[in-house]
Every structure is written in C-alpha cells, then in structure tokens.
C-alpha cells in the first residue's frame, strides 16, 4: 500500500481540484478527473493492483496498453509524492465512481512557483 509522503508533501482537495505540493522540489501537481479517484483509492489503503482492476471494471480508460495507471504510480513514487508503507492495507477492490470522462489518468506537474516557494521563507508551508 501507499501513503502520502508527509510532511514533505502537502495535499488538499478543494471543490473538485486536488493539489499536491512537494516541499523538497517546490513543484506542485494536480491530477485530472480520471486520476483523482484512483489516487484517492490508493491513499485510502487499497492495493495498487486492486485499484487498477477496479478502474478497468467500471470502464476507466487506462491508455492504449492499459498502462497509464502504472505510469501514474511511477510518477508519484519517483516524485516522492507517495511512498510504499509496510503496514497492511485494505482488502479487496475499491468502489470507484464511474469515470468522469474518457481521458487516461494524468498528473499535471507545475514548476512555475519553484523560485517563489523555494526562495521565500514566507512560503515555507
């Protein structure tokens, strides 16, 4: 199972927008509407493979080779947004909402505030 890499990473979901702020790289991220339920299921403690199966079962588009979820997972671990946890997670498949659209899951990465977040002590959040 995976957990949020706290306190390095701060995450919030406000209205229908989720945001991750990585306080080491000062990049910030936002998942599209397909990625968000998958990430929420992961962070709720479900096994990654079970999340993938659940996504396919309710019709999520996971890319041409069904590997977009693995890529999302790789990106999130490579950027240290989430880390593998030793503890046992939830059993079984998560119940995912129907896909909001036909896009594959994407986590957008933004670098435009790196200077500001990194340089100004006032932004040490």
């Amino acid at each position, binding site marked *: 199972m995976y957990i949020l890499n706290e306190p390095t990473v*701060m995450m*919030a979901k*406000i*209205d*229908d*927008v*989720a*945001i991750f*702020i990585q306080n080491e790289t000062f990049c*910030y991220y*936002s998942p599209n509407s397909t990625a968000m339920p998958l990430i929420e299921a992961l962070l709720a403690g479900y096994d990654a493979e079970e999340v993938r199966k659940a996504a396919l079962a309710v019709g999520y588009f996971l890319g041409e080779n069904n590997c977009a979820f693995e890529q999302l997972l790789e990106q999130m671990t490579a950027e240290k947004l989430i880390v593998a946890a030793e503890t046992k997670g939830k059993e079984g498949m998560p119940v995912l909402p129907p896909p909001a659209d036909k896009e594959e899951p994407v986590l*957008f990465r*933004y670098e*435009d*505030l790196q*200077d*500001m977040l990194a*340089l*100004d*002590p*006032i*932004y*040490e*959040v």
Partner: protein
Amino acid sequence: MSVSVIIPTYNSCLTLARAVNSVLGQTLLPNKIIVVDDGSTDDTRTILQKMPVQYIYQKNQGVSAARNKGWSNATGDYIAFLDADDCWLPNKLMCQVAFMEKHPEIGFCYGKYKSMEAATIREEGFSLLLSGILCRRALVETVGGFNEDLRNHEDTDWFMRISDKGIKSGKIEQFLFVKHKQSGSLSNFKDAVLNKEEFLRMMAANIKARQKRN
C-alpha cells in the same frame, strides 16, 4: 522612463516614515510615491503631511485593494511596491531600472533581501516579496491587479497569474531591500501554516482557471 512607487499601509505609523525615507533616499528617484492608507486609525495621515507623497485614504479593504488603488493612480512606465514595514536599500531602483532597460523581454525583476529583527540580520537571500520587485506597467495591465478576495497569499496568486501568461522575470544579484521582523510577531513559517488552507485554496483556484482555459 518613469517609476511610480506604491506603499499600502495600515496602522503602520511607527515604520512608515522609514519606508518613505528609504524611497526618498534612492540614487534614482521615482516620479511618484503613492501611499494608500487602508483605513488607519493611528497617526499615519499626520506623519505623511510633510512628505512629498500622494496620499490616498480608503476605508479598510485589505492590502490587495490598497495596492490596486495605488496602481490605478500610478503613471510610471515601471511600478514598484513597498510594504510600510520594509525599506529599500539606496541603489534599489537604479539597479532595477537599469536591468529592466537592458532586458526588455522580462516583465519584472527581483533581487536579494535581508531580514532584520532589531539590529540583527536573521536571514538573507533572494526574495520575490513584493517590496523587492520592479515591474513594467504593461505587466500589471496584462495580468490585472491583486485578488481583493484574498487576505493572504495575494502575492502568490498574482505571481501565478504572471507565470500563467508566460511572462519572464529577471534575478539581480544584489541586495535591494530590508524586511523588518517585528519582535514577538508570528514567524513567517507559523503565519504560512496558519494560512495553509487559504494558500491551498488560492492555488487550487488558479489551477482550475488554467484547466478551464486549456
């Protein structure tokens, strides 16, 4: 080439004269100094009476509204902001104007600061705090003013909108201003943590606006 300086102030009569004097002591003087009094109840008006500034009073509406009011009265090709509790180092404007004239492709520039508590330097380094930037008037016209709904992080919101427009900035390797920390006040860190939700909310709103445009 002309520069307008905007100083928003609210009950800062103890530090305001120092701020204004640091502008008057510049090696390159601005054409206009606009002090926007955001509904102060202290001696702000009295202190400014003998100073060569344009004094504008408004009922308390927050720092964003005060800066926007200043901007709407600014006439310079360049606009600089200064918070009433900060002060500039003497070459600040001269360095920045020379830099901007040399680099027409950038929209604003910033440099180094020193953070002082009493007479002790607490921190120093580069800063994007508004007291240290100089921007083109055209930038403000393109991006718009500060979000008056935000009581905190309005500057981050503004910089995000600048970034979203693809406007470039320039970094100057010189000390430009001094940020004075008030003894006993919350640290910047604590202040940011207390305002975390508002900070995240502001960032999420910007992301949503970008997603809509794209």
